[in-house]
């Protein structure tokens, strides 16, 4: 049972490796399969007869003359205006991320530097807000938004997403700010800065890694949102996720399920790229929250 770390236990390593490989298949295979299938026709993607059709694309060759087809993508992006949803998503996520960070850094800094009790209560309140399902809030938006006649537009959805993201953003940035020594702001203030100058000239440059990490998560929250965008945007302003949801109702019944499949695959691409380039920051962000929050 006892073994020193100098003498690795090969059986254990082997079991561990096998388990990890199994997990990698579980975690990664669905995406591979769906991406591959998105270039086929429906008869191959849902190949009841023989699952290997999905690989070889028998029906795809029969229907389109090639083993790979862009029909699904064409149908979604061009015929069904998915490009517009893509643009809307880009606009919404970028603006939400930037605004969340601006508000969040200011607020998070104040919370990290105030020694008073009310700062603690604000954080607790933010925690409760963070816990509330978004759809509960959405049910409170609709009536006032109808009356104010601001329902359905992108700016409304953006501001709502920023506000809904605030509790999380505040917590995360607050713990990043706590890790920056107070001496730094104080030196700056003695050197002649106002509080805000100290924040902008000295603290923010040191905070960039934390801001980038938090920005990634704000981006994910905005990008992955369904409750807010599905309920608050009118048809022509829809972002990708509600658009996909509305494909499910209308297109699937017409047999064009491949439009939905290809738009789903399209919508995962940005996330893939994000993980590829920012893996370290995402992991760091999760653990920073865990260690300090």
């Amino acid at each position, binding site marked *: 049972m006892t073994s020193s770390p100098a003498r690795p236990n090969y059986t254990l390593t082997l079991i561990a490796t096998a388990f990890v490989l199994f997990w990698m298949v579980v975690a990664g295979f669905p995406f591979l399969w769906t991406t591959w299938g998105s270039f086929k026709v429906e008869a191959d993607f849902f190949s009841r007869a023989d699952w290997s059709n999905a690989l070889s694309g028998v029906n795809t060759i029969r229907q389109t003359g090639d083993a790979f087809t862009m029909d699904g993508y064409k149908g979604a992006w061009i015929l069904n205006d998915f490009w517009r949803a893509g643009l809307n998503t880009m606009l919404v996520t970028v603006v939400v991320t930037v605004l969340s960070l601006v508000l969040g850094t200011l607020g998070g800094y104040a919370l990290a530097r105030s020694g008073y009790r009310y700062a603690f209560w604000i954080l607790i309140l933010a925690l409760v807000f963070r816990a509330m399902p978004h759809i509960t809030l959405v049910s409170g938006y609709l009536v006032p938004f109808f009356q104010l006649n601001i329902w359905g537009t992108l700016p409304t959805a953006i501001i709502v997403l920023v506000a809904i993201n605030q509790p999380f953003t505040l917590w995360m940035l607050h713990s990043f700010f706590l890790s920056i020594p107070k001496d730094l702001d104080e030196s*700056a203030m*003695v050197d002649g800065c106002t509080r805000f100058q100290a924040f902008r000239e000295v603290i923010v440059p040191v905070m960039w890694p934390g801001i980038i990490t938090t920005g990634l998560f704000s981006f994910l929250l905005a990008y992955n949102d369904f409750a807010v965008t599905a309920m608050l945007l009118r048809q022509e302003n829809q972002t990708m996720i509600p658009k996909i949801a509305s494909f499910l109702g209308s297109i699937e019944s017409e047999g064009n399920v491949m439009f939905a499949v290809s738009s789903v695959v399209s919508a995962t691409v940005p996330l893939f790229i994000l993980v590829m380039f920012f893996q370290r920051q995402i992991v760091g962000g999760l653990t920073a929250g865990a260690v300090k929050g």
Partner: protein
Amino acid sequence: MADIKLKGITRRWNDFIGVDNLNLDIADREFLVLLGPSGCGKSTTMRMIAGLEEVSSGEIWLGERMVNNLEPKDRDISMVFQSYGLYPTMSVYENIRFPLRIRKVPASEHKERVLRAAEMVELTQFLDRRPAALSGGQRQRVALARAIVRAPNAFLMDEPLSNLDAKLRVSTRAQIANLHHELKTTTVYVTHDQVEAMTLADRVVVMKNGIAQQIAPPMDIYNKPANTFVASFIGAPAMNLIEGHLEAGTFTSPVLTVSGLPHRHSGPVTLGFRAEDVAVVSEGGNLAAPVYSVERLGDSTMFAIRAKDDLISLKADKAASLAIGDVVRAAVTAKVSHIFDGTTGQRIEPLLIPA
């Protein structure tokens, strides 16, 4: 340049008092050291002067201005932090220039002033580096340069040497003394190291639990400690304190009797004497006890003896050859004895200086 007046300043957190009713007049160009054990309120006092900490009650005057409600930036002081507070994203040059840039000093003067400050602390060859690429001593000097690059009302330094190793501490200490001599700027310096206090200060404030115990030049603090706390805090080793009774000029206690004391007081007292003031004798003497420990310091030998509960230290020359368990004798004279009130611990002055 200006004098600093603290009028009864107090800092409270809820019911905890960090600094209690401190009154202090710091003269222009003075080098004042705040000395005391950890947690006694030294940093809090300094931070109140800087404006980084709110004052619960009392007033702070910088020159002719009452500055209680001024922002730190409007007090025109510079400060050196214990952990230096350097800006990690800026080069050494930019760090030193920062106060000039922020205070809108004409850009044409920057280069010259930064270079002059860097020269004073011997940093000219590191100007392009980031703080992360500097040693502790070099970072410390960047912090100093940033403080001296402009001519502020006062310098505040919060344990600036405590992160340096022993040798560097001595040389940087000398550098600070020299800078003060040259710039002649009012300086408040916080430390818990009595050697720093003794060597640098024009005056020392010894603090305990937020209360100033004694405010006096270093030699006065050494020669005439105001109470038993100051006596035991200043000097290495600390002053020996023996509890006993004073009656008609004679101090009696189970371990020691000293007569001929020029004090009128009678009642319970504490008698104090410094190891370096007392001679170890081979015969006679009024203090005799077995040696508890021996420390050879090279130039001298320290003996500790046990008197009731306390250890008493004695100093002998380096040739002394006593071992643990041998009986050591010493002659404690009235001349070297300090008398403190047995209950309050306050110093009782002798009536007349013995001849």
